[in-house]
């Protein structure tokens, strides 16, 4: 298994509180991604990073921010959590050669976040 650790694995919090999820990798991969998974929607991309301090928005970025100060860590922050952000959050990593997009992503085991 790829060395990807997500923390915490489970969290319950209240509406309006800030929440930070952490993704840590030991593979030295350049690309990192945050997804959320909801029933009937598959995985939807929230934010991604293509290098240290290089991040961009995905499909469902409203209400989320990210930071990547080191290759190995990618943080996802909910500044003021809402009930609609209750979901399972997955981090993924990838290493893409400059001449090919044909590489898989490797996933962590997710964080189950409940916002009451």
């Amino acid at each position, binding site marked *: 298994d790829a060395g990807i650790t997500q923390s915490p694995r489970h969290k319950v919090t209240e509406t309006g509180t800030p929440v930070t999820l952490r993704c840590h990798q030991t593979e030295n991969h350049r690309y990192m991604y945050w997804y959320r998974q909801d029933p009937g*929607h*598959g*995985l939807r991309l929230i934010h991604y990073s293509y290098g240290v301090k290089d991040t961009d928005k*995905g499909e469902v970025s409203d209400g989320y921010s990210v930071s990547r100060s080191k290759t190995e860590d990618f943080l996802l922050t909910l500044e003021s959590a809402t009930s609609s952000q209750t979901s399972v959050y997955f981090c*993924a990593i990838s290493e*893409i050669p400059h001449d090919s*997009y*044909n590489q898989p992503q490797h*996933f962590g085991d997710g964080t189950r976040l409940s916002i009451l």
Partner: protein
Amino acid sequence: SQQGEEDPQALSIQEGENATMNCSYKTSINNLQWYRQNSGRGLVHLILIRSNEREKHSGRLRVTLDTSKKSSSLLITASRAADTASYFCATSMTTDSWGKLQFGAGTQVVVTP
């Protein structure tokens, strides 16, 4: 909006039978990938098929790709109880960069002994 749509949404079969699931997508792709997700776990990459390939095998898995129909199929032969999982297709679109993928909603497969 989802690029990939899987069909069926759910599939129930007995051990030893074959399982087939399909994926349709909307725009041109670099490649199409299939992933498996066991309950409570992250996604695991199964197989990647490039846009210029038509068929690919990996163990008991067979993937086909028809770019003219914008569709792919995943066949699991001689299924086992351990194949019980959700299966997702994901596409790397030619309009996307940085290795981004678009995932479908998945097919839930249950294999009974």
